[in-house]
């Protein structure tokens, strides 16, 4: 089954607005959550991540929110810029003993328009 799901394949936001990207997960064992930015034909770049012992983390214009009871995490990008246009991948992992498995979502294509 799809353990990590990004329900919105695409999102268009006006320049200066807030982009909100969402990710849902199924596995209660996930304790690490991350967001990556990816351009076509390029590898993903880590943007921000959190462990399950926090429910919010900010880094500049980026904020990740974690809702463990709802099995949901999101990325908020404030003051969105045209250069934020890219595919955003969410990822989750479980740090069980000897377990280094990560699961990625299918991605949300963000377009920021002027």
């Amino acid at each position, binding site marked *: 089954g799809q353990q990590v799901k990004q329900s919105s394949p695409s999102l268009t936001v006006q320049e200066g607005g807030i982009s909100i990207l969402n990710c849902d997960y199924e596995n209660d064992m996930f304790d690490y959550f991350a967001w990556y930015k990816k351009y076509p034909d390029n*590898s993903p770049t880590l943007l921000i991540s959190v462990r399950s012992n926090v429910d919010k983390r900010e880094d500049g214009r980026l904020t990740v929110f974690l809702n463990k009871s709802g099995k949901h995490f999101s990325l908020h990008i404030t003051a969105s810029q045209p250069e934020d246009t890219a595919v955003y991948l969410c990822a989750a992992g479980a740090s069980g003993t000897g377990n280094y498995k*990560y699961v990625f979502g299918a991605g949300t294509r963000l377009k920021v328009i002027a």
Partner: protein
Amino acid sequence: AQTIHQWPVAEIKAVGSPLSLGCTIKGKSSPNLYWYWQATGGTLQQLFYSITVGQVESVVQLNLSASRPKDDQFILSTEKLLLSHSGFYLCAWSPQYAEQFFGPGTRLTVL
């Protein structure tokens, strides 16, 4: 600073031919290493991980194998390619169980 290098950048191979893709990480001792694959239009899938030299764990069975002959090297291979092996192969590293950092990737086309 750590750098991760993958080779080749791109490869076009015939069905049934062998394959070897490589990944090297410099500037970090004893990293965790990972292989990922993304089919065109598909989702990034973890294939293998390794936390130490000589030890590799399989996550998804795709008729591929992986080896870690040195601390800083991770190899992905198969003796017989299938059409379904086409896609983008990514190597990644992490300090321990933590954030993953990806290499530039290898684009594989199987004809």
